[in-house]
C-alpha cells in the first residue's frame, strides 16, 4: 500500500514538485509513525515462525529422529529375492526330471479388508476353485488375520489375485519342486519337502550338488517403488545354469517300468525292481521299483515307498549267484570249464539234505559239465564245485567281491550286503554249501548286478552310479564324480563264465530271455524268502533274472527281481526272464544295436 502511495506521489512530483514533496512528507510521516509496530510485528512473526520451524526440526530430528528413521528404513528397504532355484535334474538325453517352479501361499487378513467379506468372497470365488462362497465367508469369520486360503497357487492364479488389488489378501512366494515325469523316476529322484529339502533319492543324497544358496539381499527402494540398484552386489543375479545330469535314459526307464509292471500284474506280485547298467563304467541307465509314488503328491503315499528297495533291501540271491561262484572256482583253479561233476540230485551235508529243484521230477542228472550245471541250475553240482575250495579261501573270495560291504551307489540309505562272520562260515560245511547256490547270505539287487557286471566287463568291480555330473545348458560338463574299480576276476575267467551264461539262455532255464539275432547271457533265480530271524517263509519266494548282452562285446547288464509272485507258475524263468527280454529289446531299439554277427552267420 505504501508503495502505491509512493508511486503516486512520485508521479505527481514531476509536475508539481513542491506540493508533492509536502504531500509525500505527510505520508512519510504516517508511514514513519506506524512502521516500528509493524516492523516489530513482522519481526515477531518471522522470529516466531523461525523458532517454530526450528522447534519442529528439533522435534523431528532429535526427539523423534531415531523412530522416524526406523520407519523410513522399513518403507525404503525392500527384500530382493532373485530367482535362484534348486538345480534341475535331467536325464542323459536332457529331459527334465525335476525342476523348480514358483508357487504362492494365499493368506487372508479380514481385519484389513476395506470392503465386506462377502464382496471379497465373490471376487475370489472364480479364482479359487477349491472353495464355494459359503465356505470362504465361513473361513473369513473364523479369525481376524492369518487365514491360509491356499498353499500352492500357480503363478498365473496368483497374478489374477494380485490384479484384484484387494486389501487384506497376502501372497507369499516360495519355491516348489515339480516332477514332470510324475512317478516315472520317483525311485531315483526322490522328492523335496515343503521346506524344499530333499527327503529321498538323489534329492536327498545329492543335496549339496542340487542346492544353491538362496540370496536374500536387502536393498533400498526409491519413492516410485523401484529398486535403487547401487547397493546390488556384483554377480547377485548371475546364477550358474548348471543342471544335475543323471545317467538314466527316460525312454529306457519308461520301457523298464512298463515291462516290470506288466509282469507284476500278471503274477500278482508284491513288489518288483529292475535295473539296467552299463557294465563298462557302472552307470545305471534305468532303475525302477514297483509299486512307486508320484513325488508331486508324496503326502498321499506310504512312507515305505520312499526308499528304493533295490538299494535298501537285502534278499538271498539264490541261483543268480551261481555264475559268480563258478567264476570264483575258476579263478581259484579248482575247476576248468571242462571239469565234469557228478550230479546226484541230492546230497547230505552236516545232516542237512540238499537237493536240486527238479530232484523229485528228474532225480540225479549224472555227469555234467560246468555249463550244464548252470543251465539246469543244479544245487548239488554247485555244492560239489565249491566244496573243492578251501572254506577260508572261499570266504576270502566272497569278501574280496565286496559281499558284506556297501556298493557305494549315490542313492541314500544303502544297506551293505550280509555275510556271516568268518568263524561261523568256516566252522561248518553247510555254510559254504548253502552259499554255493546263493543262500545263507544276502545282498541287494544292485550288488547282484554289480557282481554280474564284473563277469561282463572282464572282471572289474565297477561302482554303480546314477549321477553323471553337473552340466550347463549347452551340455558342457563342469563336474564329474569319480568312481573306483577293482579287478576281482581274471578277464579269461569272466569270458568263460559269460559264455556258460549264454548257454543258459540258449539251452537252459533262461530261454524266455532270448532275442533272435542277439547273443544274451543270463541266469535265472528262484529263492525262498528268508525270515528276518532265520529260517524261510513257507510258500514265499523271490524270483529273479540277470541278463548280460551282447555276449560278443558285453555292454549291458540287466537284473529283474520280483518279490512274492502269487499267481501261476512263478519262477525266475517265467516271471523275471520275460522282463529282462522286454527291457533288452527296448535297449536294442533305443541304442540301435545291430544283431550279433556270429548269430547271423549261424543263420
Amino acid at each position: 500500500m505504501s508503495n502505491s502511495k509512493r508511486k503516486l506521489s512520485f508521479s505527481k512530483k514531476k509536475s508539481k514538485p513542491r506540493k508533492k514533496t509536502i504531500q509525500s512528507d505527510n505520508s512519510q510521516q504516517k508511514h514513519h509513525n506506524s512502521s516500528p509496530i509493524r516492523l516489530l510485528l513482522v519481526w515477531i512473526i518471522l522470529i516466531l515462525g523461525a523458532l517454530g520451524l526450528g522447534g519442529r526440526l528439533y522435534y523431528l530430528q532429535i526427539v523423534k529422529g531415531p523412530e522416524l528413521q526406523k520407519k523410513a528404513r522399513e518403507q525404503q528397504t525392500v527384500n530382493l529375492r532373485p530367482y535362484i532355484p534348486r538345480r534341475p535334474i535331467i536325464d542323459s538325453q536332457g529331459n527334465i526330471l525335476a525342476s523348480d517352479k514358483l508357487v504362492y501361499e494365499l493368506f487372508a487378513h479380514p481385519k484389513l479388508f476395506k470392503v465386506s467379506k462377502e464382496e471379497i468372497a465373490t471376487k475370489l470365488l472364480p479364482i479359487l476353485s477349491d472353495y464355494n462362497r459359503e465356505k470362504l465367508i465361513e473361513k473369513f469369520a473364523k479369525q481376524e488375520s492369518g487365514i491360509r486360503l491356499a498353499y500352492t497357487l500357480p503363478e498365473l492364479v496368483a497374478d489374477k489375485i494380485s490384479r484384484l488389488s484387494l486389501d487384506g489378501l497376502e501372497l507369499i512366494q516360495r519355491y516348489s519342486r515339480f516332477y514332470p515325469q510324475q512317478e516315472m523316476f520317483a525311485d531315483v529322484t526322490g522328492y523335496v519337502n515343503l521346506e524344499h529339502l530333499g527327503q529321498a533319492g538323489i534329492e536327498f543324497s545329492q543335496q549339496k550338488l542340487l542346492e544353491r544358496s538362496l540370496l536374500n539381499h536387502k536393498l533400498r527402494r526409491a519413492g516410485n517403488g523401484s529398486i535403487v540398484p547401487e547397493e546390488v552386489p556384483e554377480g547377485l543375479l548371475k546364477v550358474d545354469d548348471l543342471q544335475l545330469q543323471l545317467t538314466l535314459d527316460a525312454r529306457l526307464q519308461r520301457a523298464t517300468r512298463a515291462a516290470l509292471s506288466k509282469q507284476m500284474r500278471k503274477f500278482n506280485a508284491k513288489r518288483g525292481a529292475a535295473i539296467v547298467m552299463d557294465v563298462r563304467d557302472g552307470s545305471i541307465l534305468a532303475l525302477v521299483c514297483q509299486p512307486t509314488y508320484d513325488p508331486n503328491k508324496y503326502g498321499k503315499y506310504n512312507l515305505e515307498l520312499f526308499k528304493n528297495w533295490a538299494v535298501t533291501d537285502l534278499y538271498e540271491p539264490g541261483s543268480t549267484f551261481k555264475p559268480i561262484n563258478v567264476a570264483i572256482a575258476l579263478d581259484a583253479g579248482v575247476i576248468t570249464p571242462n571239469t565234469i561233476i557228478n550230479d546226484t540230485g541230492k546230497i547230505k551235508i552236516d545232516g542237512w539234505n540238499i537237493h536240486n529243484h527238479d530232484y523229485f521230477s528228474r532225480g540225479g542228472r549224472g555227469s555234467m559239465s560246468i555249463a550244464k550245471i548252470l543251465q539246469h541250475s543244479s544245487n548239488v553240482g554247485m555244492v560239489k564245485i565249491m566244496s573243492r575250495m578251501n572254506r577260508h579261501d572261499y570266504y576270502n573270495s566272497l569278501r574280496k567281491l565286496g559281499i558284506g560291504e556297501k556298493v557305494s551307489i549315490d542313492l541314500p540309505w544303502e544297506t551293505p550286503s550280509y555275510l556271516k562272520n568268518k568263524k561261523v562260515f568256516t566252522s561248518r560245511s553247510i555254510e559254504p554249501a548253502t552259499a554255493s547256490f546263493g543262500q545263507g547270505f544276502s545282498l541287494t539287487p544292485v550288488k547282484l548286478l554289480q557282481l554280474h557286471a564284473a563277469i561282463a566287463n572282464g572282471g572289474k568291480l565297477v561302482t554303480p552310479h546314477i549321477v553323471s555330473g553337473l552340466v550347463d545348458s549347452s551340455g558342457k560338463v563342469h563336474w564329474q564324480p569319480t568312481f573306483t574299480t577293482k579287478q576281482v576276476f581274471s578277464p579269461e575267467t569272466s569270458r568263460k563264465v559269460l559264455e556258460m551264461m549264454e548257454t543258459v539262455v540258449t539251452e537252459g532255464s533262461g530261454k524266455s530271455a532270448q532275442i533272435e539275432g542277439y547273443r544274451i547271457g543270463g541266469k535265472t533265480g528262484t529263492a525262498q524268502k528268508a525270515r528276518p530271524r532265520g529260517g524261510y517263509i513257507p510258500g514265499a519266494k523271490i524270483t529273479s533274472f540277470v541278463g548280460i548282452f551282447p555276449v560278443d562285446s558285453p555292454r549291458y547288464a540287466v537284473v529283474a527281481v520280483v518279490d512274492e509272485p502269487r499267481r501261476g507258475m512263478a519262477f525266475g524263468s517265467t516271471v523275471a526272464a520275460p522282463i529282462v527280454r522286454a527291457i533288452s529289446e527296448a535297449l536294442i531299439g533305443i541304442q540301435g544295436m545291430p544283431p550279433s554277427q556270429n548269430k547271423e552267420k549261424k543263420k
Partner: protein
Amino acid sequence: MSVAPRPIVTEPYPPRKAVASARSKKHLSKNSPDRRQRSISGKSTKKVEKLPVRSPLNLPIWLRSLLLLQQSSLGVFLFLIAAIFSVYGFTVGTQQLWNKEYKKLKTLQRHERMLTETNETLKNNLAKQAEKSGNGLVPVNPNKSIFLRRFRDNSLKSGNSQSTNSTQTIPIKPPPSAY
C-alpha cells in the same frame, strides 16, 4: 565480484533513483528539509563528466589476477554445472535402466519356467498316451527294425562283407514310440 571497470555513465541519474536516494537521506536527517532540497537541486544541476578509460594493462596486478580468477571461475562453474547434470542424469538413468532390465529378467525367467513345465508335461502325457494300447503305436522292437550294412568299397573288392572286421551295420530305427 563487480570489480570490473565500467564505462562511465554519461546520462544523468534517473529521477526516481535520485528521489529515492533523496528520501533516504531525508530519513536519515528528518529534521532538516533544507538539506534535502539542496541535495536534489544540486544533483540535477551537476555536470556529468566522462572518466578516462583505463586500459586493462594499466591495472594493478592484484586486480588483474582477480579479474582472471573471475573469468576462469565462470568457466569452472559452467563445467561443474554440466558435470553435475550429466552425473545426475546418468545415476537416475542407470537406475531406471537397471530396474527395466531386472523386470525383463524376471519375465524371461518366468517364461522359461512355464515353457519347461508345459514342455515336459506335454512329453509325459504323450508318452503315457503312447503306452496305452490301441492307438497304433508299438514299442521299439528289434524284430521290426531294419539294420543295413554300411556300404564299403573294400567289401565289394573282397566280395565277402561279413568276414571283414571293419564292416559295421548301421541301424535304421523306426521312430520311438515315446518322444
